[in-house]
């Protein structure tokens, strides 16, 4: 696990009240601070804050995934306006503002998910908006203290203390103090800004042990089965109760499919990029009516295959961080973990020969 091997040099302790100071200092530096805020009873989202009072530390995870900060639900990519004599004025405005953003309190799993997104938005074509937003943002993760029954980060190579893509990982302590682990240059800069309230940790300091998250399956074993079972009744069974709504994908921090649409009146309009998802039947439908993924079974299969087979093959990592959002979001109780444990036991030739029926 990536977070266990901590270099002591990177550890700092922060005194109580550091959060307030951090917000104030960053504000003073003209930085946009985002932090967990209870937006409605029981719901915590990352939102811009002006002071630390708005911040809540009492949350399991934020409802919407972190991806929305870099890859918004909807964003304008082009604006156009008709001009006299049939000409059209096309602008790729507004580009992303350059204001620095510091996100305090993202969860490690959400941040780790950016690794997958980075690969997609930054292979041979570089999505300038995504990259610009990534570049201006410093991610200060808060180590996860309250994984719940749906969490399974450890099964996909993560941990409640995962530092992947985090700039700083913060271990909050009961007394308001915190232990901070710097993971990048941006993180170092953050610590530097907070030098009044943050001190290098005494020698021998060790981060606390992560809370236990049970490893539920092994993605490598699952992949072995997936490699062989593009065609399988299993998919039909899995898909039976799936409603094909997009809730799981929309809330997934690694899902990144999108749509591009124009919205306009007679003289001016915008081209927008919007979240989309592979569960929707129209996603792949051709003009001829032919649909390469004609039924829910093939669409459910795509979701699993993409995350645990195609993405690893193409980009060398699983496209899932085990945050459990999809499981929580699903109103018919579709459970990614059960699907993968079933696959794994099938791979082992286990007794769940009739896995199908345990699922739907």
């Amino acid at each position: 696990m990536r977070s266990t091997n901590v270099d002591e040099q990177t550890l700092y302790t922060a005194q109580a009240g550091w959060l307030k100071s951090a917000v104030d200092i960053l504000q003073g530096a003209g930085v946009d601070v985002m932090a967990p805020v209870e937006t409605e009873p029981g719901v915590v989202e990352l939102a811009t804050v002006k002071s630390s009072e708005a911040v809540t530390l009492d949350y399991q995870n934020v409802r919407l995934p972190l991806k929305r900060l870099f890859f918004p639900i909807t964003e304008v990519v082009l604006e156009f306006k008709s001009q006299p004599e049939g000409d059209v004025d096309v602008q790729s405005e507004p580009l992303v503002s350059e204001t620095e953003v510091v996100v305090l309190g993202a969860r490690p799993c959400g941040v780790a998910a950016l690794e997958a997104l980075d690969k997609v938005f930054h292979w041979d074509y570089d999505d300038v908006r995504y990259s610009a937003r990534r570049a201006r943002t410093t991610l200060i993760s808060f180590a996860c203290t309250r994984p719940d029954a749906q969490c399974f980060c450890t099964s996909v190579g993560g941990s409640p203390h995962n530092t992947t893509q985090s700039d700083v990982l913060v271990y909050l302590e009961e007394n308001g103090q915190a232990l901070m682990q710097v993971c990048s240059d941006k993180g170092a800069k953050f610590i530097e800004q907070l030098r009044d309230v943050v001190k290098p940790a005494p020698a021998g300091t060790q981060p606390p042990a992560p809370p236990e998250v049970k490893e539920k399956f092994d993605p490598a074993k699952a992949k072995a089965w997936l490699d062989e079972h593009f065609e399988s009744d299993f998919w039909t069974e899995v898909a039976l109760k799936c409603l094909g709504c997009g809730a799981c994908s929309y809330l997934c921090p690694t899902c990144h499919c999108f749509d591009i649409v124009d919205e306009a009146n007679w003289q001016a309009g915008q081209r927008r990029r919007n979240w989309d998802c592979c569960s929707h039947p129209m996603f792949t439908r051709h003009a001829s009516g032919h649909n390469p993924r004609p039924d829910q079974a093939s669409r459910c299969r795509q979701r699993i295959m993409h995350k645990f087979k195609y993405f690893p093959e193409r980009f060398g990592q699983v496209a899932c961080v085990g945050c459990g959002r999809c499981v929580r979001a699903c109103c018919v109780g579709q459970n990614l973990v059960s699907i993968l444990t079933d696959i794994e036991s099938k791979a082992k030739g286990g007794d769940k020969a009739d896995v199908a029926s345990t699922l739907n």
Partner: protein
Amino acid sequence: MSQALSTNQTGTLIPLDYMVLKMRIVSITDETVDTKTFRLEFCDAQQGEAFEFHAGQFGLYSVFGAGEATFCIASSPTETGYIECSVKRTGKVTNELHQCNVGDIIGFRGPYGNWFPIDEMQGKNLLFVAGGIGLAPLNSLIRNCLDLRDQFKDIAILYGARSVDDLVYKERLENWQQRKDVKTLYTVDPGGETPQWQGEVGFVPTVLTKMKPASQNTIVVVCGPPIMIKFVLAALVELGFSRASVYTTLENRMKCGVGKCGRCNVGNLYVCKDGPIFRCSDLEALPNEF
């Protein structure tokens, strides 16, 4: 796994902000009731001069306010100063495009995707098999090859459509037919012929079997509806062709054109980047989702 033909993975990052180049429609040709060919010129002549592409590549064309749609570039890379695309009316964007007039400005992004392996074709016999609007991507390649005629050995074109009315590029078909250095065979589905029709009557795979093309040293390029491709391929295998010498293009839906939006994802490939041109032997290894 698949030996993708990707030829444009240069390793250099090309910035992507979805900006389009403005192009002006300079002519519109009615091909069939629902297909038109548009000839487009870059509004900015400099962009036009700098523009290069290979036969088989596609672009994203936009009607402002309606959106973007994917069409292959139907003209030949050897023709410069303009590009052509043939568009079948099927939905929102294509509908709007069909309502455009000469002089209207549209947007273009591209070229994207890989291209036909024209280098590999050098010195070989070429067989082009197309059905319906599938002649559009092939048109580019055929024109390209005819412009460089001496680099190839025998060239044969088999083209079929549902009916005489559904044949596209009628004028060009005639030109090809006139040429001595190209063998042409045109066919329409049974029932689609007219009294004047001089060509064959029968489905493309059937005509192909009758045609008995030689398989040695021949590269085949097939384009058309999925069902036709399937049977043409079977016929070719029957005639002794290896799947590795047959190429085709896929038309999965795509929005970004550059491997991000996820729509054209088939297995671990993206049709927009790893395609749209595929060697048929490689397709076998892919999940059947195209």
